[in-house]
């Protein structure tokens, strides 16, 4: 028997043992780690999900970032800067988690740059007023928390652990958004109107952050079987609505949904049908700021290319033996 055949057979046996072990890990609800064998589809699903999540953090810096220079008090400016900075940090944690699945960061950047990768549609809406910063923190970060808390238990170890760190920070984010709205809702007449207007605009898109209704969400089943996703889109959306209704009452603001009411029997709030045409239009790149967000991202990448090249060249130079003595 030639060496090649032996190693081929070994590899096949390894894969079989690996597959059995993977099935067992999932059945036991334990963690899969980077060195473990995993099905190619599991790997691909995760890379897609984790990198999309990372891209969302990065593009998500733009709508809020646009208010940093105009924040109406120095304290609010500091809080907003810290928050947007955190989002950049979330992007970093998530790209690192995705890298453990074998996809280099540059490749993920490239997918975003060329428009092959998606990010959360919510960031294709404009942050037009200061109250939008409140609504984004309260509703968008709030929805992110509902989505992300169960992901802390995702079967892929590095992803779950990244989510634990992120969730801690997201609760600060939601709180600062709620505080902004609370101050506005108890402020001047113009401030109250600004707050209500922002909530009116962000409510629907925030509910759509959980994705299409379960019936139209073909990939969810497999993700749930793999313990990546723990709850369906509709279950998470319901949780979110149940969470924000009393919070809106405490703010003294209304939610723009005439069908919203407590259902004693279900023990949940009923809510109206969302505009899914709008959702799919925005998803396909037809959002109010879709083009603007991508152009902004690409411009920053393009303008930074010479800096990244310089950093790489400098790192090579430092790594070279007798650095400084070798000619360029």
């Amino acid at each position, binding site marked *: 028997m030639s060496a090649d055949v032996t190693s081929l057979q070994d590899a096949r046996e390894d894969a079989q043992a690996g597959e059995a072990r993977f099935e067992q890990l999932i059945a036991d609800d334990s963690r899969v780690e980077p060195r473990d064998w995993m099905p190619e589809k599991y790997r691909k699903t995760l890379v897609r999900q984790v990198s999309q999540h990372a891209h969302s953090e990065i593009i998500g810096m733009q709508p809020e970032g646009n208010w*940093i220079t105009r924040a109406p008090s120095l304290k609010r400016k500091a809080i907003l800067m810290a928050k947007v*900075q955190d989002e950049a940090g979330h*992007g970093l944690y998530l790209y690192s988690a995705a890298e453990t699945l074998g996809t280099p960061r540059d490749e993920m950047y490239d997918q975003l740059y060329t428009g092959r990768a998606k990010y959360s549609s919510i960031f294709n809406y404009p942050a037009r007023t200061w109250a939008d910063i409140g609504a984004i923190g309260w509703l968008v970060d709030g929805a992110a928390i509902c989505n992300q808390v169960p992901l802390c238990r995702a079967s892929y170890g590095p992803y779950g652990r990244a989510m634990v760190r992120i969730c801690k920070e997201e609760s600060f984010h939601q709180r600062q958004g709620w505080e902004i709205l609370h101050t506005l809702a108890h402020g001047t007449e113009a401030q109250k109107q600004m707050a209500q207007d922002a909530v009116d605009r962000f409510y629907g898109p925030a509910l759509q952050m959980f994705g299409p209704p379960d019936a139209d969400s073909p990939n969810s089943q497999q993700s749930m079987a793999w313990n990546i996703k723990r709850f369906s889109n509709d279950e998470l959306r319901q949780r979110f609505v149940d969470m924000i209704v009393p919070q809106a009452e405490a703010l003294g603001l209304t939610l723009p949904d005439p069908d919203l009411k407590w259902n004693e029997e279900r023990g949940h709030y009923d809510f109206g049908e969302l505009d899914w045409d709008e959702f799919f239009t925005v998803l396909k790149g037809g959002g109010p700021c879709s083009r603007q967000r991508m152009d902004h991202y690409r411009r920053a990448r393009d303008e930074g290319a010479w800096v990244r090249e310089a950093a790489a060249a400098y790192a090579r130079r430092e790594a070279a033996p007798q650095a400084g003595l070798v000619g360029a």
Partner: protein
Amino acid sequence: MSFASHDSATKQSQGDAITAEEIADSGATASEDVARYALILGDDSLMLAQRLGGWISRAPELEEDIALANIALDLLGHARFLLTYAGSAWGKSEDDLAYFRDEEDFRSCRLVEQENGDFGTTIARQLIFSFYAHELYTRLLDSEDRTLSAIADKALKEVAYHQDHAAQWVLRLGLGTEESSRRMQSGLDSLWPLVEELFVDVEPIERLEGVAVPPSSLREPTMRRVAEIIEEAGLTVPDAAPAYGGDRRGLHSEQRGFILAEMQVLARRHPDATW
């Protein structure tokens, strides 16, 4: 629970947790001259924080979005301390001073008001300002004014990180590629005429012996260290005459009006509002 700037989990340069609110609550009241001195320092920090904030989501690397935001946050923190303390002389808050003073009332230098330019220009400014600020706060630690000395103590730890960040980038850009070296040099060249303004002993500083740090005393140590970094990076210390009008009053930059128009627009639209 409060959500102050130091709650950011990605913050790299954690100083001691004194806050602008604590300074306001301490009851320390600045004299007219001390307040005017604090404004000079505070306005520099505020303008530079405002400028660096513009980099967030536009930096060449994700790590730089974080680093520049971090530095901007630190500077904004320094501005908040200094404006809060200055305001104690006139019964004004940090926000009264930041949002409701007019263009001619600010005392920032032209260097910090310049547009960001490319990354090389931003780093050139960071190099000059952070080395200046480090020398400044090192000496301000010994100020007879206890509030200024406490602010210096907090700022110094943060500015040490800013210095390091700037110096590292000057080396990377200076020794990286032909293009980066050219851009880094051009950033230094374009800002150089504005450097001298940092070191002019404007009033009321001469009346504050033992309290304020005379800017002229910072010139030699700052510029010596800045020149060392520039030379280590294979670049040339520019030979440019100071731009006329550098006395932090009267002949301020064209850019100041634009910075304030943007920074103050919302607060001035709702003058009676709290946020």
